[in-house]
């Protein structure tokens, strides 16, 4: 389970041996949400679940069966989902509200800001099917701006766990932590790298792999890709990466981010989200002020997704293992001051141009 490259941090994390692909179990993160929610409802009868016509796919179905008196179905009404939950929270309930991230919080941003955050109500948004990995449904259903629109709201916690086991823990932690929160998870099966023994605390980033050359700061299901990429660049290039599971976008673990940047001198951020405004942007905000180092951003390049196979889309939009390795090498070269090593031009490019123009 541990190796010479996996340092103290890695051992304390009690991870699955992610280097052995055959040993990796594939489970959707949403399953962890479903399990965590049932347990949260058992621990506290004030925990209620409100669903907008997606009980099965958001995995609220199990809660509905286990705690029917704590379950409310409201149909396709995502603005209501938030505002009504704020009312229930005002009267002492702890509502989890679920739909696809594209609509919850995608459709309800102003209700989230006013009735949840400004009004300081204890509502928990569960954003399912986030990212391009929702696949064949296409761009309309691929939430890749949600982290950005949630993290700018005062008081809002934003949590993006890395696998199904961690999503269960995150669901329980969000239920027990007072305050408005956004919990993001995905549809597809994804690698399980943590175990029951792996610790989890909101606001505490986790070093999953030790390394001194480049710090790879990742969240969500791409943490696994980051780990695989780190192993490959170690083998192929001799670059040793630290891999940080930065599951809490807000409040972000600033000490961990600054510590990783200081130790490694270069950072790569990895998220299934627009490069603009997401987890990587927050990392850059912190490091710009506290410890500037070269940063490369892995994420969607200011564009919309499309239908396709989840793995194919992750690769196409530049978030696959090969893209992460390229970003690591680029960050490493920039840190070393290698001539011609420039930041990835895609990160600096805005798509606010005529989309129908020739060659765009």
């Amino acid at each position, binding site marked *: 389970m541990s190796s010479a490259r996996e340092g103290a941090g890695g051992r304390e994390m009690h991870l699955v041996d992610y280097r052995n692909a055959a040993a990796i179990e594939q489970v959707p993160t949403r399953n962890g949400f479903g399990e965590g929610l049932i347990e949260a409802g058992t621990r506290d009868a004030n925990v*209620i679940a409100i669903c907008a016509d997606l009980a099965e796919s958001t995995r609220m179905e199990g809660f509905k069966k286990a705690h029917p*008196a704590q379950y*409310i179905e*409201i*149909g396709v*009404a995502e*603005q*209501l989902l938030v*505002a*009504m*939950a*704020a*009312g*229930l*929270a*005002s*009267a*002492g*309930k702890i*509502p989890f509200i679920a739909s696809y991230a594209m609509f919850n919080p995608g459709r309800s941003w*102003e*209700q989230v800001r*006013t*009735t949840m955050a*400004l*009004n*300081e109500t204890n509502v928990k948004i569960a954003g399912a099917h986030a990212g391009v990995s929702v696949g064949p449904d296409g761009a309309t259903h691929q939430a890749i701006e949600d982290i950005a629109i949630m993290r700018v709201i005062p008081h809002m916690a934003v949590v993006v766990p890395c696998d199904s086991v961690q999503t269960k823990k995150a669901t329980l932690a969000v239920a027990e932590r007072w305050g408005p929160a956004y919990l993001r998870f995905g549809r597809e099966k994804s690698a399980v790298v943590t175990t029951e023994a792996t610790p989890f605390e909101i606001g505490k980033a986790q070093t999953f792999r030790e390394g001194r050359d480049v710090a790879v700061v990742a969240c969500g299901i791409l943490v696994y890709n980051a780990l695989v990429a780190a192993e490959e660049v170690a083998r192929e290039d001799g670059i040793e990466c630290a891999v940080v599971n930065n599951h809490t976008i807000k409040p972000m673990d600033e000490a961990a981010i600054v510590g990783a940047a200081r130790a490694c001198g270069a950072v790569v951020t990895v998220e299934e989200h627009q490069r603009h405004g997401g987890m990587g942007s927050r990392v850059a905000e912190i490091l710009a002020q506290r410890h500037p180092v070269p940063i490369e951003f892995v994420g969607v390049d200011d564009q919309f997704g499309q239908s396709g196979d989840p793995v194919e889309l992750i690769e196409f939009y530049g978030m696959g293992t090969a893209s992460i390795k390229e970003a690591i090498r680029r960050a490493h070269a920039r840190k070393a001051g290698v001539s011609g090593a420039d930041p990835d031009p895609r990160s600096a490019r805005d798509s606010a141009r005529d989309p129908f123009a020739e060659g765009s």
Partner: protein
Amino acid sequence: MQTLSPQRLTELRLKANDVRQGIIRSLEAAKSGHSAGSLDMADVFAVLYGYVMRHEPANPEMPERDRLLLSCGHIAPVRYSAMANFGYFPVEELLTLRKFGSRLQGHPERVRLPALESTSGPLGEGLAQGVGMALAAKMDGKSWRVYVVTSDAEHQCGLHWEAVMTAGKFALDNLTCIIDRNFIQIDGSTEDVMPLEPLGEKYRAFNWDVIECDGNDVASLVAAFDAAKRVAGRPQVIVANTVPGKGVSYMEGDYTWHGKPPNREQAEVALRELQTDRERILADV
């Protein structure tokens, strides 16, 4: 059906008059804010705080209190003036309306003043929160009721109707929505901007009980709220027909007073008229 003595009705009319005077003073001091809707809802708030609701101003977070939400937060001056005149805070505090550091924000913020029950201003959001509260009361077997004051124009918001549909589904008979039916909004008449009629029929179609009344007549309001409390198995809406700017002659019926305050001279005229009104109320006893 008359449920209150003439003396009690007179007391409520005097309270409504106090509330109107507080609105004029606070808006004049604030130099901005919404006059017409605030004035026309003074009678509703006087009846709610003075007759309808279970509440204790000295104990604003009493668990068994009835909840009152102001969905159309821009008419906050009427809420604040009513709260002050019913003892939630000193009447002098009304002069801090919209000023830096005040609990009396331009639009209501519950965190600064918990008795407000909700944070409001963005329209169409109040009933949804009221539905959540009423449902929580039902889930917990509580007897407290929820009152949500709405403007007519916010019935143009989609979210409001999501809430109307939901209250019907859950048969929330502990929920009463009050509509300030004054027919005005910023750009003119509601029926020109985006017609709402037949408003009552719309609610009936969603399984609500519909009660119409004169929203500027205390006795009519008392009867309407009494009728609402008697309804079982359905949420109730009280369509309170009001005259915008009610109580101040030069504002009455003029939509241009929706979003502006009286200046010093206008406020003096308004307060003189309201004082005359007050003497008339007392003389009627």
